[in-house]
Each structure stands twice: as C-alpha cells, then as structure tokens.
C-alpha cells in the first residue's frame, strides 16, 4: 500500500507569494494514498532536507511528492535526500509549482492555487505507481579525444595528459595553433603570441600520452560516455612525416602559387607548403584538390596541369619529362590529338580553354628526343609479338619493353607508324618527327619488322609457337564502300588508300576535279592532300556543318585552302565513260530524326538530283579492321568485324592472345588507341608474370561540368584573357607544299598561354617536389585513411573564424584595396607575415599614416549580421593601435566605436593606455560609407558626442569583423549529437553553472566554439574541461540512468518499428528460443526519449519512470 508524503515548498516568496500554500496542503490531505503533508519555506536548504528525511522515517512513508521548483533544479537533490532516508531514489515525483505555476500565473493567484492543487494531485497519482529503479554499471575507456588544436584544445590535451590519461588530439589544418598562431601580439600583456604559444604546441607534439593527428577530421562518433567509438579521417599529406626534414627544397621548385589562408589571402603560398615557420608538426604538406578535369578526361590521364605549370615557369625540359611519364608519342599527340582535355578545361567557362595540345607540342619541340637517356631495364626473358606498329602497338611495345619483356612488332606496311604514318598527311604530322619518336621506342629494345604481313608471312600459328604472348593491334585500314553503281570505275580512289599511297611516296594519280565524299578527318585530310597535288576539290557531305565529325580547325583550314564544302548532298551513282569517272549524280538531303549515333538521319529529297562534273571520286566514309588473319587461330570476331575481347583485360578467347586499338573498337582517335595499348600492356605483363588479369573495366572518364555558382565565381576572379592563336602558314603558300601548317609557339607565347591555367587541382602533380626532395619524403600516391579509436570522453574546441565583411557593401571590402579586416592587419603586423612585419598598404606598398578602425562590422547587428557582441574586438583594436604606433611613431589611429568593452583584468587600463600614451582617438559613432579619393580612403562617419559628421582621409581602414563558429561546426554538432544554437555555437549545459559541459554525458566544450572568447578564457576553459574529463576517468565504472525504455517481450510482435524510430540506435533485435524475434533495449544507449513507446502499437514498449500506466493515472486524477 503506498504511503505518500507531500511536501510543498514556499521557495521564499517565489511560490508562496502567489499560491495559497495552506489551501494546497488541505487539498493534499484529502488525496488518495497521501499519509502525510507538510510545507517548508526553503525545502532544498539543509534544515528543509532534514525535515523531509525525518518525516519519511517517522511516518513510514514509502513514496514522496515535492511541490517545488523545476525538476531540472532539484530533482537530483531530493533523490539523494530520499535515498538517505532509506528509500529507493526513484520513488520520488516533483510537482513543478514554480516555473510551471507561480512564475507564469503571478497575476491570477486563485487560478494559480487551483492549478497547483491539480499539479500535486497528478504527481500523487503518478508516484503511487512508481517502481524502485536501479541504475546499471558499465565500464569506460580512459582515453580522451580533443577536437581542435587551437589554444583551448592544446590546453585541454596537455592537462588531460598530465593527469595521466591518453589523449588523441585531432586538428583539421596541417598544423596546430589555431587563431592564436595568426596573432602578432596579445593583449593586455603585449606578449608575442607565437612565443607564448609555440612551447605549448611543441609540448603537445612531444607529450608521450598525446597522439597528435593533423590534416585529420572526425567523421563518425558512435556510442556513449566512456564507450565512444570514433572514426577519424586522416587526410593524405603526400609527405612522409618521418622523412621530411622541412628543408624547403621542394617548395622552391613548386610552380603553383595560390593565396595563403594563414596570411588571410594577403600573400601567396605554394601548393607544397608549411603554413608558417613555427608550425607543428614542422613538416610540409601538399594541397591537392580534385583531379583536374583535363587529367580526368584525357584517355591516357596526362598530368596536364603539371606540365602547363612547368611551361609557365620556363621549365621546358622538366615539362617534357613529365609529359613522357604518360605519353609515349608526345610529338604526335601535340599535333594531331583531338584534345578532349580542352573541352573540359574550366578556363573555357571564363573565356577560352588553354591551348593544351599546342603547348604539349611546344614542349616536345624544345627537347631533342635523341638525347633522352634510355633507362636500365631488367629482362624477364619473355617474348611478345605485337601485330601492327600503329600508336596502339607502339605504346604497348614501349610499356612492355620497359617492363623487361622482349618485344617484336610485325608491321605489314613498309614503314612503322600505322594510321599516323599513312593516314595523317605530312603537313599535319611531319615524317621525321614521327620517326624520331618511334626510334626512341626502338632504343628500348623493341624490334620492328616492316613489310611483314601477319597471315601471309608469318602466320599467326607460327607466332603462337615462337612468342609467349601476342597482341593484335592491326588497326582499321579497310575503307568502307560507297555502295553506289559505278564504284569500280577508274578514278574512284578510296581515301584511306589514297592517303597511304601519298604518305608512302607511292604513285597516287588523281585527276583535276576531285570530289571527296565524307565529313570526317579522313575526308578533310584527303581533300587537303588532293589540293596540294594541284586539283580543285569539293567535299560532299550528306549532313550539315554541325554534324561533320572532323576537327573544326581542320574544316576551317580546308576552307581557307579553297576547298568547297557541299553540305546536305550524297552521291547516288558514279557516271563513267569508257570505264573512267566522268561525273557523279547526287541528291540533296534534309535532316530528319536522329539515328543511333545521335546525329540527325539524312533523308534524300525526292526529285532533287543533280550532277557534279568530276574526274576523281575519293570516298572517305570510315574504316574497318582487316581480320582475315585471325581465322588462323580462331580468334573470335564480333558481328561488327572487330576483335572480341574481355572489356577489363583486353584478352581474346585464345589464351595468350590479346587485342587493342582500332582493331577492337573500330576507328577512334590516336590517343584512344594509345590508352588501349597501355591497358593491353598492363594485362600482358600480368599474364606473363602469372598474375591474375584485371577483372573490372575502368569507368568512362567524364569531368563534371561546374555548377552555375562555380562558373560565376570563376568569372569574377579571373579577368578575360583570350587564348593565343597559333601562327599558321598563310593559305596560299601552304597549298603548294606539304610543309607543316601550324608554326608553333615561341617560348614567350607558350609561357603567356600556359599562365592562363586556373590550377584546378592546386597541386599539379608535376613531381618537381619529388625530384628535388633529397630525403625522398614525397609520396603522391598516399591515400586518405580512416582511423578508429575507442574513446571515453570528448572535448570540443573547434574555435572560430572571422566573418566576411562583403555583406556590408558600404565598406567596399574587396573593391577598395586598402580596406582590410582585423585579422589581416594582424598578419601585416606579424614578422612572419606577407610583408615581414612592415605594415604596408595593399594598394601601393607605402606605409600608412592615418589608420581608421571601424568596430562591430557584423556584430551587434540584427539586420545584416549577428545580434551578439564578438567580445574581443575592442581590445584588439586598442592593441593594434598601440602596435601600429610602435611600428611607426608618426601613425595616427582613429577608432569609430559604439562602446568600449574592456571588462577583463588589466583591460581597461590597457585601453586607456592606447588613448593616453599612444594618442589613439576614439570617436563615438558609426561609419556610413567608405570611398576612394585618389590614393586615400575617405571615411564618412559621425562623432555623436559632438553631434557632427566626421570625414577622415585614411591610408588604411581596418574592419573589426565578427567572430563566427568555424566552418563545419554545425555538422560536427550533429555528428556528436550535441546541441548548437542558431549562430552555430555549441550550447553549454547551463550558461552560469555548467560552462564546459554539454547536455550529453562525456562531451565537454572549451573555447570560442561556444561563443566568442579571448585567450585567457579559452585556456581556463581548456583546463576546466580537462578537469571534467579527469573526474570522469577517476571512476572505475559509470552508472547509467535507469529511466530507459523497456520492452515487454510477451507483448512484442517483432514488427521492429521501434528500431526504426529510435534516434540513438538503442533498440536491437533478439531471437527468442521459441523462434520469435523481439526488440530489446540497449540500456546504455537509450536516452529515454520515449519515441519507441509512442510508436509501439502493442503497448509492449514502456518508459521506466514514465510508464503509460503512470501517465494515464495522471490524466485520470484530474477528474477527481
């Protein structure tokens, strides 16, 4: 039988002043189960608690109701009281007669009293159904995690470590130090910030109990106090921390410069850099962003940004060497590649893409390949036969030779080079340059046998006996037929055959009036060659200009050379006389619906036939492979006439026989063939080594198109600078010979063009750093890692950043160069800053005489900025005013202020010193506008104390911007499941009494991540958080809150809906012995939110201490 004691508290006048306590007591006496009532002036005081304990014992009470303040205040207090009297502490209920009654109904005392009686009645009904609850114990890991390596985090880490526990300190930047490292001097002592900070930074790095992770971020946190499992992403530095000596050789050679974040973008840093000289760890780091789109799109993934950066810096030899790392035929691709990289180039969104192809050619032209050394190769003794010395076969041979295999290429034609030799005309690809590239490959030990047509001599079967592997790279040299009557007449000379004849110096007789049928590169090549042989040429193409597959530049060049392009026409008949071509009959076409290639299907227009008087017809409709020889070994051939291969390994159906290039894909571009050859070489190498062949094909490389915002940002940052046009031989001159048409860049032109590169990936992977590093510390292949730690307690110290003043257009930040932020001035004052401690104006580098500070830019502003005050700006402006005068005694500083907040120890004296000893003038008023007048920045403000507008001609204006939580604070709060406010600051458990705790057990806070704090506060809080952690770790075990969910397994239907709704993943499944699956609560994870109770349709889930029966009893009690 419940014997309830009801104790009403007057709480001084807080409750007693509004509620008629006597009336409540009278009513309580009549309530069911109530055995004793009493009132107390201050129940939470020592005598008050004593009287409750005595009453429990004397009256044999077994349930207690206290009508007092919010349970958040004293529920725990009275649980202890009740426990001391021998009762289970959970047989207690609080009726909140203060926050929920007297404090909100102060103007209606009668109703307030009635309500108080109801609240007590409900509490009595509930307590009658209270059960004794017993907290569980669980173990804890005594290792702390400190997130953020600024001064607060450093202090917390040191204090925890010194109390004997392990600490993992995670810092996102490459170095610890945070904002304090960016400061020059600190107020009010004017200590050099780095001097007082760096010893602590070094301590943290060297402390035996601290594991320091930089370039690292917390990714995932699971678990609960004492038992967190934390996943940390350790980003790749690309520099081995153990080997780097910070000598700086690497950074000297790095060609990429970007604005320095540490110097607030006032200076530059290289892609490989140390943020500042005292950084800890004092090691370099490489800033690598996404792989630039040029490299992604290139079929052979050239380090485009790399060699562009090297060319821009005049390092042509190094550029060529970098090109060779991925490109076996650079002189070729530099002239004939269709450059998909240029279509993807982000510069194209600003003005025009970089002339990547031509720059590659420039670099290749600078270097004499004959002087390229041949590396040492260890022979494997394996032999590979390659069929076809085109770009695919040559690239494969090159790679295989370097891998140590003996390669012999069998080339059917008299000269090696494949389509590059016999398809592409000399005026695009000079013969000797191509030969030189091929000769280098031969120097690697590759044997090329020409005039050897596989299938005739030797036969494929013979090769199989003599070689360990065969690579079919025979390309696609068969011309597709026109399929019109009269095609066999004399004078019909297929384009591929025509070009081959001309390129091999054989007879290639054509007439005077030539019609070339087709719109691809072969057609254009054939047309331009025919022109050079003296004929008049007309290209006949069945679709429109936009549908022509040939390179745009080629089409333009053809037109310049006087070649007519007849669009939307196709031949239907070749008209011959005496077996010789006399004319062709054509029909006009119109564009219809798109076909399989996506291009509009050409449809003939009935009755539009016309004749074209020609004596030569050159069809150039496309090519197909000649695979007759493949029958010898029964190599499978597809319906399209190409070799069937496994997409991932390029292996055919015959073991040891592989295929690549046009023979597999049908006609594609040179660079595609090279990529294919490289891939085949990789497979063959694995095959010869007895390793498994690749099983997954590389996904199609496609660079993402940048978003609209990104394009706008790029356009804003980079002024338009059009692409350099390549000098070309004039049209009238060039049709008289086969000399190269494009004349190339000069070194100055090449550098200028290369400088347009936006450095999309920042680090261009040019490998200069690797080359220059004598310690071998650079490793570009490093990958991000995920580290997992078992953690007992977490301290969040993620700090702040300063706000962007661009929201205040009237201050012209970003437009007027001499308007800077407080942190930027700090960098100018700093000896390690971009101007080595000389305060110089960004516009002209002169020393400023008149410096004007504007306070509260972004703070104390509900409309445009933050409502809060950023706390430390008044102090740092005073400090900066002093320091400016120390640097230059002729400086005059003005500070436009609203208030001067100098509340800390020695702060007011310091501020006054800036006025009295250093002549700083404080003007009470706001600034409405800044404008440029000559070389001065005019500051239009007001001095409200004299009631007049004030205009000051300043040399430098400093904006005191707001302190905001660092980037990613909200995301981290969500990861930790810790509360944060609308400004993204973390919320402490109680702003007065629990400043370093959160509502989440085991997670503590320190420093500016909670609100703007200065250094002494941040250090104090770091220590306070450490003390909390130490207190936690001083226990052998922790106890859990017993007011958790419990599932009645008899009622549970196993629907598992509770699992879905639980935000803490605290409900698990359990299979009972009778085969049923039911839910069970993990009591250590459960936070008692009650969502499962609401979700359970069977009433199986209940919350201990707030059972459904109790809640129902409370409601029912109101009707009594």
């Amino acid at each position, binding site marked *: 039988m419940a014997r309830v004691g009801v104790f009403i508290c007057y709480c001084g006048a807080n409750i007693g002043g509004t509620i008629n306590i006597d009336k409540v007591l009278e009513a309580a006496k009549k309530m069911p189960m109530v055995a004793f009532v009493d009132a107390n002036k201050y129940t939470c005081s020592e005598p008050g608690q004593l009287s409750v304990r005595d009453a429990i014992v004397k009256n044999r009470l077994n349930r207690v109701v206290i009508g007092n303040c919010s349970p958040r205040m004293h529920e725990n207090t009275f649980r202890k009281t009740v426990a001391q009297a021998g009762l289970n502490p959970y047989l207690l209920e609080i009726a909140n007669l203060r926050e929920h009654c007297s404090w909100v109904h102060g103007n209606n005392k009668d109703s307030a009293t009635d309500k108080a009686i109801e609240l007590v009645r409900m509490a009595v009904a509930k307590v009658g159904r209270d059960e004794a609850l017993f907290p569980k114990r669980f173990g804890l890991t005594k290792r702390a995690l400190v997130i953020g390596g600024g001064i607060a985090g450093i202090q917390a880490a040191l204090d925890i470590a010194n109390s004997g526990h392990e600490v993992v300190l995670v810092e996102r930047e490459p170095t610890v130090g945070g904002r304090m490292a960016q400061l020059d001097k600190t107020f009010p002592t004017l200590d050099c910030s780095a001097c007082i900070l760096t010893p602590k930074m070094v301590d943290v790095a060297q402390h035996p109990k601290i594991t320091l992770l930089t370039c690292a971020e917390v990714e995932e946190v699971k678990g609960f106090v004492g038992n967190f499992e934390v996943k940390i992403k350790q980003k790749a530095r690309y520099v081995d921390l153990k080997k780097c000596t910070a000598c700086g050789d690497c950074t000297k050679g790095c060609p990429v410069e970007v604005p320095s974040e540490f110097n607030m973008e006032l200076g530059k840093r290289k892609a490989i850099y140390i943020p500042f000289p005292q950084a800890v760890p004092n090691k370099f780091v490489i800033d690598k962003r996404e792989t630039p789109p040029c490299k992604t799109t290139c079929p052979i993934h050239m380090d485009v940004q790399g060699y562009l950066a090297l060319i821009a810096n005049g390092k042509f030899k190094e550029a060529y060497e970098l090109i060779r790392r991925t490109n076996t035929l650079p002189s070729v691709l530099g002239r004939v590649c269709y450059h998909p990289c240029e279509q993807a180039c982000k510069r194209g969104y600003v003005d025009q893409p970089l002339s990547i192809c031509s720059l590659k050619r420039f670099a290749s032209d600078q270097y004499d390949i004959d002087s390229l050394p041949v590396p040492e190769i260890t022979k494997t003794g394996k032999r590979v036969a390659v069929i076809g010395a085109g770009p695919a076969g040559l690239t494969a041979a090159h790679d295989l030779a370097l891998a140590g295999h003996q390669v012999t290429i069998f080339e059917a034609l008299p000269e090696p080079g494949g389509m590059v030799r016999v398809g592409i005309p000399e005026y695009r690809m000079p013969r000797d340059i191509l030969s030189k590239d091929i000769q280098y490959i031969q120097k690697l030990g590759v044997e090329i046998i020409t005039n050897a047509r596989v299938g005739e001599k030797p036969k494929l079967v013979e090769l199989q006996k003599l070689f360990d592997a065969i690579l079919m790279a025979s390309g696609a040299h068969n011309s597709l037929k026109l399929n019109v009557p009269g095609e066999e007449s004399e004078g019909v000379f297929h384009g591929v055959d025509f070009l081959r004849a001309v390129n091999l110096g054989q007879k290639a007789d054509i007439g005077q009036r030539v019609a070339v049928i087709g719109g691809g590169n072969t057609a254009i090549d054939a047309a331009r060659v025919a022109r050079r042989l003296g004929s008049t040429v007309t290209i006949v193409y069945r679709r429109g200009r936009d549908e022509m597959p040939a390179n745009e530049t080629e089409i333009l060049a053809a037109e310049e050379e006087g070649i007519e392009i007849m669009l939307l026409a196709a031949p239907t008949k070749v008209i011959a006389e005496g077996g010789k071509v006399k004319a062709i009959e054509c029909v006009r076409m119109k564009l219809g619906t798109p076909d399989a290639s996506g291009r509009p299907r050409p449809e003939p227009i009935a009755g539009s036939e016309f004749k074209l008087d020609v004596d030569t017809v050159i069809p150039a409709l496309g090519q197909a492979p000649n695979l007759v020889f493949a029958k010898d070994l029964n190599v499978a051939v597809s319906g399209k006439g190409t070799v069937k291969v496994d997409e991932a390994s390029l292996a055919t159906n015959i073991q040891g026989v592989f295929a690549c290039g046009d023979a597999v894909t049908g006609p594609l571009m040179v660079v595609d063939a090279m990529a294919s050859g490289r891939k085949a070489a990789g497979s063959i190498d694995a095959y010869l080594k007895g390793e498994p062949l690749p099983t997954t094909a590389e996904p199609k490389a496609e660079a993402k198109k940048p978003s609209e915002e990104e394009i706008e940002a790029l356009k804003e940052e980079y002024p338009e600078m059009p692409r350099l046009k390549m000098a070309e031989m004039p049209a009238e001159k060039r049709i008289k010979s086969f000399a190269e048409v494009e004349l190339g860049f000069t070194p100055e032109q090449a550098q200028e063009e290369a400088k347009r590169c936006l450095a999309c990936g920042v680090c261009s992977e040019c490998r200069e750093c690797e080359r220059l590093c004598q310690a071998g510390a650079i490793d570009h292949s490093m990958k991000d890692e995920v580290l997992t730690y078992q953690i007992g307690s977490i301290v969040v110290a993620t700090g702040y950043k300063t706000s962007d003043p661009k929201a*205040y*257009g*009237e201050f*012209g930040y970003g*437009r*007027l160069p001499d308007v800077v932020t407080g942190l930027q001035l700090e960098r100018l004052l700093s000896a390690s800053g971009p101007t080595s401690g000389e305060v110089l104006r960004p516009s002209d580098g002169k020393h400023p005489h008149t410096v004007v500070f504007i306070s509260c830019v972004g703070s104390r502003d509900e409309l445009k900025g933050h409502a809060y005050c950023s706390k430390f700006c008044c102090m740092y402006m005073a400090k900066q005013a002093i320091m400016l005068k120390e640097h230059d005694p002729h400086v005059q500083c003005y500070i436009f202020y609203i208030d001067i907040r100098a509340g800390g120890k020695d702060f007011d004296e310091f501020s006054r010193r800036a006025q009295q000893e250093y002549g700083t003038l404080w003007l009470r008023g706001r600034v409405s*506008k*800044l*404008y*440029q*007048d*000559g070389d001065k920045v005019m500051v239009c403000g007001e001095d409200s104390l004299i009631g007049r507008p004030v205009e000051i001609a300043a040399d430098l204006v400093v904006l005191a911007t707001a302190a905001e939580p660092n980037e990613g604070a909200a995301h981290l709060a969500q990861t930790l499941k810790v509360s944060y406010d609308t400004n993204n600051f973390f919320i402490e458990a109680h702003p007065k009494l629990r400043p370093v705790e959160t509502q989440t057990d085991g997670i503590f806070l320190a420093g500016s991540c909670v609100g703007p704090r200065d250094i002494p506060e941040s250090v104090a809080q770091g220590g306070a958080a450490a003390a909390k952690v130490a207190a936690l770790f001083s226990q052998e075990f922790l106890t859990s809150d017993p007011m958790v969910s419990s599932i009645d397994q008899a009622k549970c239907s196993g629907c598992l809906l509770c699992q879905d709704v639980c935000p803490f993943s605290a409900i698990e499944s359990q299979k009972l012995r009778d085969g049923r699956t039911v839910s069970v609560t993990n009591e250590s994870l459960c936070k008692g939110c009650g969502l499962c109770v609401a979700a359970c349709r069977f009433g199986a889930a209940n919350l201990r201490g707030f059972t459904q029966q109790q809640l129902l009893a409370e409601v029912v009690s109101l009707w009594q």
Partner: protein
Amino acid sequence: MSTNAYAYYPGCTLHSTAKEYDVSARAVCEKLGVGLEELKDWTCCGASSAHTTNEMLAITLPARDLRTAEKMGKPLAVACAMCFNRLKVTEHELADKAKLDAVKALVGEDFSNTAEVVHLLQILYERRKTMVVSKPLKGLKVASYYGCMLVRPYEITKFDDPENPQMMDKLMVTLGAQPLDWDFKTACCGASLPLTRRDIVLKLSHRLLVQAQQLGADCLAVACPMCQFNLDAYQEAINQEFGSKIKIPILYFTQLAGLAMGLSPHQLHLDKHIVDPMPALKNKGLA
C-alpha cells in the same frame, strides 16, 4: 518580363522641366516595341511635400494612380525615381487592410492594390540582350548615377544591390559605353533642397561630380529628374563656390540608349540640357 504593354506614369516633371526624359523614354520604348499608355487623369505622387506633411495624403495621392493602373490591367511603368519610390512605398503600406480601407474611402473607389510598379530602367535592363545597338557608344566613359530613391529602402523597392547597383552599368555595356566603377552611385545629390538649402545641394552635388571628374567620366547617366536638375543646373554655382572646374553633361539613361539605338540628338532633345552634351559626344565621334 512577360509583357510589352505598360501603363505609363510620367509624373509632374516629365511634362515640364524633364521633357527630354519623357521624349527619349517614349522614343526608346517605341524602338523596343514596348507600349506606354499614359494613365488618364493621373495625380502628382506627392513627392517630398506630401510625405513630410501628412501621412494620409502621402499615400492617397499615389494610391489614386495605382487604382487607375489596376483598372487598366497593365503593369505601371514609372520614369521618375521619386515617383517610383512613392508608388512603391504606397503599395507596401496598403498591404495593411486598415490603411487600404481608409484610402479607398478617400479615393472614392474600390481597388485591390494589385498594380505592379516597375521603373523604366528595369524595363530597358530586361531587354538589353535583344536591343539593336546600331551606333555603339564606343569610348564613352559613363558614370552611372542611380541616386537614392531607386534603391532605398531596400525592403520596399527591392531594386538591385543598394550599395553597388549594376543595372544601369550593365545597360551601358550593352550600349557599347564604358561604365566607371565609382563609389557614389547611390550618394544623395541634395534632393528637393535647391531652393531652401542651396548650400547642401551644392556641397553634395559637388562631392559626387568631383569624384566622377577624377575618374575621367565623359558624362553622368541618371534616372531621376531631380538629380538631373541638381547636377546639371548648378555646375556653374558649384564651380564658383568651390573653385572647381567641373563641366560634365548629365544625361538620362534613355537618351544614351536612344543614341546607341540610332536616334538623333535632336529627337532625344539633347539641346535641353544646361551643360551641353554635344562637345563630349562629338569628341568621341558619337554625334
């Protein structure tokens, strides 16, 4: 922009002291295929006089014109920046039902405050990509002067960026001219004070004209008859007062647009300015 038919509110000055604004606006709109139908029986918007004396008067005067535009069923194109501002403020105020009812009682007619108020600059700006610029104003350095009334208060006018607006500048680019990046785009010229506080008008106008001159402006482009008057008529007085040597023509943006679209200086009433724009234009070969 989904229409080319606008109701047109010239305001008091466009039929008198700012006639050239009216003429050039109509000419340019005709070229662009934009119809301007003048409001019948329109009333003065009240300008500064009304809103400094009587709140009810200040919103009722413009409300009458909003009612007319609503009845015409067309968006209301406004030329003068002050009229634009007053009409916009009225539109904003009449969202309050009590005020709307009071105004309706005074006007004597029922209307719903649904008329859309648009400034001429917006109309031209929206059509800049399809403008036919036959005589680009090549080499003409123009300081775009927006004045206060178009951009402030921002919540009511919602017109461009209040600190560094770009509409007129971008329009100038389309016209082939070279807009100057200057800091006084929205600085006050002295407004309605030339008769009562001439000293203020001289001081403020001097400051911004000096800036324009320093940056090498060939002319100012304006969108408000008050600004045009202050900056144009008082250059002599400014020079006398401050010892400066300012001689910068002040042109309406519609006049510049008209020139670029091939209309003649005569058609655009370029002879109605106190500081003659012809020398500057002839100097650049544009007239």
